[in-house]
């Protein structure tokens, strides 16, 4: 088998006029905007591998940050899509505990079949997402404010209803072996099954953004909503669909957490609000919309999880983790800006190579 270099040399010798678009050059690779996120992730991985010792990279250590990444990642993906489309969803922070409490109250407190609880919590996610989307397109109020309102409203609703129905802010949940295996178990005693759900969501969201025409619509809507609508993109329906997907994914995480921990608390999940935004922004998605990639979001999620968990494997006080994340966020955004500018100024390849 010939090496790539030989192939290229042979091609250059026999057919110098063939454009080499099928073979990405180093230049075009460097100009892939995800490179910034990749460098960031490798940097923190190397840092914590050095300071975290052998345990950090062993199965137990890897599981600790992969589990965090999986739960955050399932929410960060649709939040990232929303951000690419020019919207924010803060309500995921209340959606997670609301969904946990829903399944715990229905299938735990009232002993209904687990499937009913699962469907109810996912249905709640879709409903809240629908309400968010509808409010955003009807009121034209920025989605930041709309979802901030639903964040608080939903948190209050969850607390109020939980206390009325169960008299408590924490409800136990016993789920059957099938539900446990599929949604809330540890593989090999360490890795949460949510990891597989994360991988599945990566494939689905990757398909939507890169391969389906909806990806084009999402990018266009985030770039310029008015022009996108004039070009015939159903921006209203698309907005509602995106909010429903982030509601669904947040509900999924809340539901699987309840099954995993065999209980639900009213006040869990607020950390997802900023953590999902941080992961997405580290991943190179433009906060103002119009730009971003699934690879970037995944890398950003991993970076966040590594810093968040890696600190426990080092000799440092865990209180420093937030400082690192803050600095990292700023550095990542600056680096992403640089790589985005490079992608924009991507000059035509030199004439000697292309023609």
């Amino acid at each position: 088998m010939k090496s790539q270099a030989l192939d290229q040399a042979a091609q250059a010798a026999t057919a110098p006029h063939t454009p080499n678009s099928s073979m990405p050059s180093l230049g075009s690779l460097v100009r892939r905007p995800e490179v910034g996120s990749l460098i960031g992730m490798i940097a923190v991985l190397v840092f914590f591998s050095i300071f975290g010792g052998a345990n950090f990279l062993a199965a137990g250590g890897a599981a600790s940050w992969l589990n965090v990444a999986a739960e955050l990642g399932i929410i960060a993906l649709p939040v990232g899509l929303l951000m690419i489309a020019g919207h924010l969803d803060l309500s995921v922070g209340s959606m997670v505990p609301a969904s946990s409490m829903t399944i715990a109250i229905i299938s735990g407190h009232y002993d209904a079949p687990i499937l009913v609880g699962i469907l109810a919590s996912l249905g709640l996610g879709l409903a809240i997402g629908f309400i968010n989307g509808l409010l955003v397109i009807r009121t034209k109020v920025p989605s930041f404010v709309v979802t901030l309102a639903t964040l608080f409203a939903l948190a209050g609703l969850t607390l109020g209803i939980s206390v009325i129905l169960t008299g408590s802010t924490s409800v136990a949940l016993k789920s059957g072996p099938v539900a446990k295996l599929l949604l809330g178990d540890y593989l090999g005693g360490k890795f949460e099954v949510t990891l597989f759900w994360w991988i599945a969501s990566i494939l689905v969201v990757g398909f939507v953004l890169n391969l389906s025409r909806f990806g084009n619509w999402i990018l266009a809507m985030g770039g310029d909503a008015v022009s996108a609508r004039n070009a015939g993109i159903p921006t209203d329906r698309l907005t509602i669909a995106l909010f429903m997907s982030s509601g669904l994914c947040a509900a999924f995480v809340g539901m699987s957490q309840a099954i995993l921990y065999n209980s639900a608390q009213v006040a869990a999940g607020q950390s997802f609000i900023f953590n999902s935004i941080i992961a997405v922004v580290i991943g190179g998605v433009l906060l103002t919309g119009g730009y971003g990639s699934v690879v970037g979001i995944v890398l950003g999620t991993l970076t966040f999880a590594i810093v968040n968990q890696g600190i426990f494997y080092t000799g440092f006080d865990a209180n420093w983790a937030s400082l690192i994340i803050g600095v990292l966020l700023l550095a990542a955004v600056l680096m992403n800006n640089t790589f985005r500018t490079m992608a924009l100024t991507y000059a035509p390849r030199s004439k000697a190579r292309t023609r």
Partner: protein
Amino acid sequence: MTTPLLKLTGINKSFGPVDVLHDISLDVYKGEVLCLLGDNGAGKSTLIKIFSGVHKPTSGEMEMDGKAVAFDSPRDASDHGIATVHQFGGTFPLMSIGRSFFIGAEPTRRWGPLTIYDRKRANEIAVTEMRQLGITRIDDGDRLVGGLSGGERQALAIARAVHFGASVLILDEPTAALGVKEAAHVLRIILQARKKGIAVIFITHNVVHALTVGDHFAVLIRGAKAADFRKGEKSREAVTDLMAGGEQMAELEAEIESFAAMQGEHA
């Protein structure tokens, strides 16, 4: 040339108590360039927004191919074959050329059981269409629109309109932000579009650009049509005077010269 492709009769537009357009009648013909001239605030933008379905006229008639039409939305206007290209062309600087070319009309292909966006075909068509308009620098449809020059973006937007079968192409100040060479290129593209039988409405306040490509000229002053003439009927000076609101441009120039002379003395 008997029936105009697009005909406006007695169009008025007011926003509340403010009259913006007053009794505008215009004929737009296939394969002609209509230059819409006027100073800032003369009502050019409002007029093209009526053409492109953004605003509805308060009163007056609009006909296409002899049939009365009323556009409910920009989408409706573009379904009738009216394409509008704004000053900065593509408004999606962070999208690839191929993707932005096909926004809302993406080519798809089968991929197993799934229907996916055909990136390769989109890129090929976009690059080919741009090449036909003389943009040969672009050979990769994956490049971002933001990396193109102003003239190239105009070409991309015009290529898009031509590809999707526009019969009326409205260009809103396409040369305003461009250098001399780039502007010349865009003017050539306008002539190419005209040759294809497209009716071009070219909005500008550059008289030289207008006289270079225009077949037919309309000058707006404070919302009313001040002049309507064909190529060769008026000199450049006469057109410039008209655009300046009927004031003698020569007087303005003399005023500027005396001011410059004063500045010179002080320096």
